[in-house]
């Protein structure tokens, strides 16, 4: 009756209990220290061994992939959360090691303030930014703080994939490392002040460290904040909001990287987060792009490569490391904070995977291993094909194939606004797109006429399947930042029927490509036609 409950512990009410690591009193690695954390399915590590294990994993992931060349400028995308904070801390520690094992790239940090999308007041955001600045100043790297409102000032060029630099081969990497080391030795021999690498790596931060010219000290323009809130309020589902936020954030970070000459961006996606992302992407229709979304490197932007060095660390390891070794982080409420489990596909998938993980501790690593095996092979004939306007992956839609349900759906979609009078792309039509017996999406902006059904079709036809599905939850595309709409307009105009043959076409208005040749986004590369129909017309007129 008065016994301690320990003996009854194993009878868990729901399902079989997870395998216990047992009451091992010693670390499995060094067999000496008291264990503090259980990694994987039952390995208990002591504090020192855990630290060594953690750091080693980080260096191994970077070293194994050999994508980051010595002296390269790398932008660290820091969200304030535990994984990215841990990543930044690892880089900081890695740069200060003794010369043989020192990390050899030149880092900078970017922080995106997304408070407006979450409905935070400027006072709260300013408070968070104070904490953020405090941490950034202790790092010693050049740092950039940008607010999400700045997407309204982005140029359309951010959506264009720049010419790709060929990825370095093993030989070029070795050559680069050797020449770098040679350079260091020469500098050391010439007796440069202090350690040569520190002169190279740390002199740079000394001036931007104090005040980054891009760092906003006051609130962003109220009009932009208002526009951003309006945009996110207009999105109907949390899933679409999260995807849109992700897209805008990526574009913003890309812009910062390009502006300041960074050729790599490091994001702190952990193993757990990537496993969840893989399953979520499948559910969202992004199965074709899993290798880019969850792989170590993501070269879809061309000149800037996104790299994920934390991809082998589970969230548990990250949380323990941060706690045991006092890694500073800033918690900011996100768009899905306190959302219920069924509020979005992301949350649902997270709950599913984590619950499964509790019962079967190898779940996350199994999903992760699967993601490692995905290969980035281009589809036949689409190697340099058109790219999605938003996510910049190769388009995977084949809407000319009207025999499939999807083909029929996309044709229907672009033809839905047919009942309302066709508007020229420039002038807004009279009635709002709420009319439409064909079931045109209701435009909630009652005051401003949103009769740009034609322009909506322009944007939609340049998106991949997943982005199109996402856009269904965005009833009106007007609130989108102007660079997206401008680029969509530009692409459809540039790659629509050429102006000189326009008069020869039967349906000569801009909406013709939407229904006629089977809407597809225009190819990025000059001189390549994506659609056989367009190619046929060109052949007839120019040959």
């Amino acid at each position, binding site marked *: *009756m008065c016994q301690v409950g320990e003996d009854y512990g194993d009878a868990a009410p729901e399902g079989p209990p997870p395998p216990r690591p047992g009451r091992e009193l010693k670390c499995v690695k060094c067999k000496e220290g008291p264990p503090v954390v*259980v990694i994987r399915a039952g390995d208990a590590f002591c504090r020192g061994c855990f630290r060594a294990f953690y750091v080693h994993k980080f260096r191994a992931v970077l070293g194994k992939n050999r994508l980051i060349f010595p002296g390269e400028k790398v932008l660290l995308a820091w969200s304030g959360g535990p994984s990215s904070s841990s990543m930044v801390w690892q880089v900081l520690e890695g740069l200060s090691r003794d010369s043989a094992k020192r990390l050899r790239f030149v880092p900078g940090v970017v922080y995106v303030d997304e408070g407006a999308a979450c409905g935070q007041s400027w006072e709260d955001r300013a408070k968070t930014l104070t904490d953020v600045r405090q941490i950034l100043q202790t790092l010693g790297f050049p740092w950039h703080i940008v607010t999400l409102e700045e997407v309204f000032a982005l140029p359309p060029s951010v959506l264009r994939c720049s010419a790709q630099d060929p990825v370095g081969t093993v030989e070029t990497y070795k050559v680069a490392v050797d020449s770098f080391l040679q350079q260091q030795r020469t500098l050391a021999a010439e007796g440069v002040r202090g350690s040569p690498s520190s002169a190279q790596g740390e002199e740079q931060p000394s001036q931007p460290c104090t005040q980054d010219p891009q760092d906003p000290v006051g609130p962003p323009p109220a009009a932009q904040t208002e526009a951003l809130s309006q945009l996110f309020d207009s999105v109907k589902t949390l899933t679409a909001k999260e995807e849109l936020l992700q897209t805008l954030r990526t574009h913003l970070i890309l812009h910062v990287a390009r502006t300041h000459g960074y050729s790599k961006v490091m994001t702190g996606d952990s193993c757990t987060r990537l496993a969840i992302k893989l399953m979520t992407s499948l559910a969202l229709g992004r199965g074709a792009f899993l290798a880019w979304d969850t792989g170590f490197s993501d070269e879809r932007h061309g000149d800037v490569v996104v790299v994920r060095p934390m991809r082998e660390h589970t969230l548990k390891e990250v*949380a323990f490391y941060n706690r045991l070794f006092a890694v500073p982080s800033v918690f900011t409420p996100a*768009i899905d*904070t306190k*959302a219920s489990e069924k509020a979005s596909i992301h949350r649902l998938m997270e709950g599913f995977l984590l619950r499964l993980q*509790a019962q079967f501790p190898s779940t996350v690593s199994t999903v992760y291993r699967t993601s490692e095996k995905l290969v980035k092979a281009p589809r036949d004939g689409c190697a340099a094909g058109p790219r999605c306007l938003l996510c910049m992956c190769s388009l995977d839609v084949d809407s000319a194939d009207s025999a499939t349900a999807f083909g029929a759906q996309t044709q229907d979609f672009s033809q839905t606004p047919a009942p309302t009078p066709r508007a020229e792309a420039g002038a807004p039509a009279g009635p709002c797109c709420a009319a439409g017996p064909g079931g045109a999406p209701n435009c909630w902006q009652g005051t401003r006429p949103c009769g740009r059904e034609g322009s909506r079709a322009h944007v939609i036809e340049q998106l991949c399947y997943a982005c199109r599905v996402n856009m269904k939850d965005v009833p009106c595309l007007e609130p989108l930042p102007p660079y997206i709409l401008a680029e969509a307009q530009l692409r459809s105009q540039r790659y629509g029927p050429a102006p000189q043959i326009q008069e020869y076409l039967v349906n000569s208005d801009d909406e013709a490509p939407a229904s006629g040749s089977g809407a597809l986004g225009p190819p990025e590369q000059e001189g390549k036609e994506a659609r056989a129909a367009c190619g046929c017309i060109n052949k007839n007129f120019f040959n």
Partner: protein
Amino acid sequence: MGISCELGFLNMAAPLSVEVEFGGGAELLFDGIKKHQVTLPGQEEPWVIRDLLVWIKKNLLKERPELFIQGDSVRPGILVLINDADWELLGELDYQLQDQDSILFISTLHGG
């Protein structure tokens, strides 16, 4: 039986003082307060984590209990550290609390 009952009386007499801390966004469910110094009333059986969770749910949790507790354990995704050590090493729910212990709950879930 007799000895156990005596020990039981001993436990019943002493209330426990422990520090409960929340991190990773879990503090949002507790009015934003990260550290709580709590005194657990003496009871017949010694305090185990399972009991502590029930106590937290009743006395500290301000909103949305389903975001913190699931069944009689914490929601998957919330880590528990007892004196900076993994609770898996100490028996998880059946760990018997000692005076001046420090229990830390870290949420690894997106958005706390």
